[in-house]
């Protein structure tokens, strides 16, 4: 189809090519300083974003580290077949979906509820102190928080025995996923309120006054005024979050997981890392990464479509 369009287009171009190219040069000359400013950005995005996208080709090749993308033989869907027949991949996918689902279920609403509670505080100084404390873990890396959690939940130096557990939840396959969800909530719930508090601050105060005159109590104000007013913020964040469903966070899991819990903790991110960079099976790992990226993109587009059908404003 593109061929059909191209021929007449090319013919048209030929007749006026000279004047066109000089017009182009003129326009380029006029804007040259802007292009100078754009140049680093253009180089960066081509080199570090679009060339790796082209590099996805190695998922369809028998890639050899000695060669490059251009001289590796094509392999069709071979790596995808190997991937979909590998039990390790299915374990990783299942774990990813389960962990992600729990994180979405608990850690997505948590900051909304916390923001509503913070908003109900009347004592301004107390509110600021609480905010200062609960924002802090967001700024600390998982490596650091992971080491802290290891020692806090260690059988020897930690609170594990005090809590009545005989093993650290980090070493227990039954508790590990819950621990992932809980520790992420601990790290991010405070910071997550910032965006909702900003949205709540923007709610029209007259709405509250009107509802109060109608006899609404505090709970009803939250339910009928605050929540509907911040619904669009919640929806946008939810759409963005669903696009990330297959990315559960490499750092957290890589830091916390250990041989005792590999079965329940290995996710796609750690699978891609292990298969690609520790075992050197680049084509297989790229295939898994591509699967992850495509599913993420599809989920994003689908949720956005769904949200728009339900009458809310989407991302685009």
């Amino acid at each position, binding site marked *: 189809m593109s061929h059909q369009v191209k021929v007449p287009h090319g013919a048209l171009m030929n007749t006026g090519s000279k004047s066109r190219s000089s017009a*182009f040069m003129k326009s380029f000359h006029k804007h040259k*300083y802007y292009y100078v400013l754009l140049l680093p950005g*253009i180089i960066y995005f081509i080199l570090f974003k679009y060339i790796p996208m082209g*590099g996805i080709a190695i998922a369809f090749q028998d890639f050899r580290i000695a060669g490059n993308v251009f001289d590796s033989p094509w392999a069709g869907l071979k790596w995808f077949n190997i991937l979909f027949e590998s039990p390790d991949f299915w374990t990783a996918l299942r774990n990813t979906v389960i962990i992600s689902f729990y994180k979405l279920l608990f850690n997505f609403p948590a900051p909304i509820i916390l923001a509503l509670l913070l908003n109900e505080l009347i004592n301004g100084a107390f509110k600021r102190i609480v905010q200062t404390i609960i924002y802090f873990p967001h700024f600390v890396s*998982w490596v650091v928080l992971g080491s802290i959690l290891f*020692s806090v939940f260690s059988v020897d130096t*930690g609170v594990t025995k005090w809590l009545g557990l005989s093993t650290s939840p980090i070493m227990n396959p039954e508790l590990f996923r819950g621990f992932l969800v809980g520790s992420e909530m601990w790290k991010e719930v405070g910071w997550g309120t910032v965006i909702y508090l900003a949205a709540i601050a923007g709610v029209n105060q007259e709405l509250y006054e009107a509802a109060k005159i109608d006899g609404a109590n505090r709970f009803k104000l939250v339910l009928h005024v605050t929540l509907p007013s911040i619904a669009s913020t919640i929806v946008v964040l939810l759409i963005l979050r669903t696009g990330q469903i297959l990315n559960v966070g490499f750092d957290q899991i890589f830091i916390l997981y250990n041989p005792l819990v590999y079965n329940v903790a290995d996710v796609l991110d750690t699978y891609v890392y292990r298969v690609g960079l520790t075992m050197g099976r680049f084509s297989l790992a790229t295939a898994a990464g591509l699967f992850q990226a495509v599913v993420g993109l599809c989920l994003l587009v689908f949720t956005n479509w769904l949200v728009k059908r339900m009458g809310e404003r989407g991302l685009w």
Partner: protein
Amino acid sequence: MIRKSWGERTFEAGNMLLLALLSLVTLYPLWHEISISLSSAAGAMRGGLFLFPRGFTLDAYKSVLSSSFIWLAYRNSIFVAVVGTVLHVLFTATTAYALNKRGLPGVKAMTLLLIFTMVFSGGMIPTYLLVKSLGLTNTLWALIFPGMISAFNVIVMQSFMRTIPEEVEESAMMDGANPLRIFFTIIMPLCKPVIATIALWECVGLWNNFMQALIYLNDKKLFTLPLLLKEIIAGQQLATDSGQFTTFAAESAIAATVIVSIVPILAVYPFLQKYFMKGTMLGSVKS
């Protein structure tokens, strides 16, 4: 003022109690770690809740700070954070400024290509192979260049730049200043608030960056703090398992390293809180 009902006052008290409890739960692990780093072997091994260090000693800090690797890691982390932040802010700003020029041929297509990078990427392996073929593996530049500009920050900066009145630029243009000069002498100074936000954002990200350090660095002299910390944890666990170390030596050394590596974050935290909040609001206005 209307008098509050009994139920309302109970709710307020309960809410304060709940949030105070949450603050305690958030702070406790950090306090526990500080206590362990300052405790003696026997004190640390008793476990349970730590209200204070037990058998106060600075031995763990002495041994951690006398290792040359922690200072090297500090230097590497500072280099990556400073150079990475400067380059990130500069090139995010140039890109945002030029892409805001609606009349510039090609701007629409470039904006679309920019946004596309937010929803789709080549992934870990193709990026790794690229960085490797550029000869950047085992250099600190591997932590700086691959994240040098982010589409999200470009958009945040663009929306801030749009609030600058056009007359400012037009009058400078009349005086014969070229766009490069306008950008550096007029636009950049006016963008200070958004630059501060993005700079802090990026600085913390680079300071905490673990995954790229793990993937790209092999030479221990090049390790950044997060990677060194991970190696100490893994190494100490191995050493403990094989009986070379007592658990105490491992736990207290790790704890001291942890505390040493978050001191800079604690030091800049007041600024972080202020500017990050502004930044998140900038971002939310956009979306």
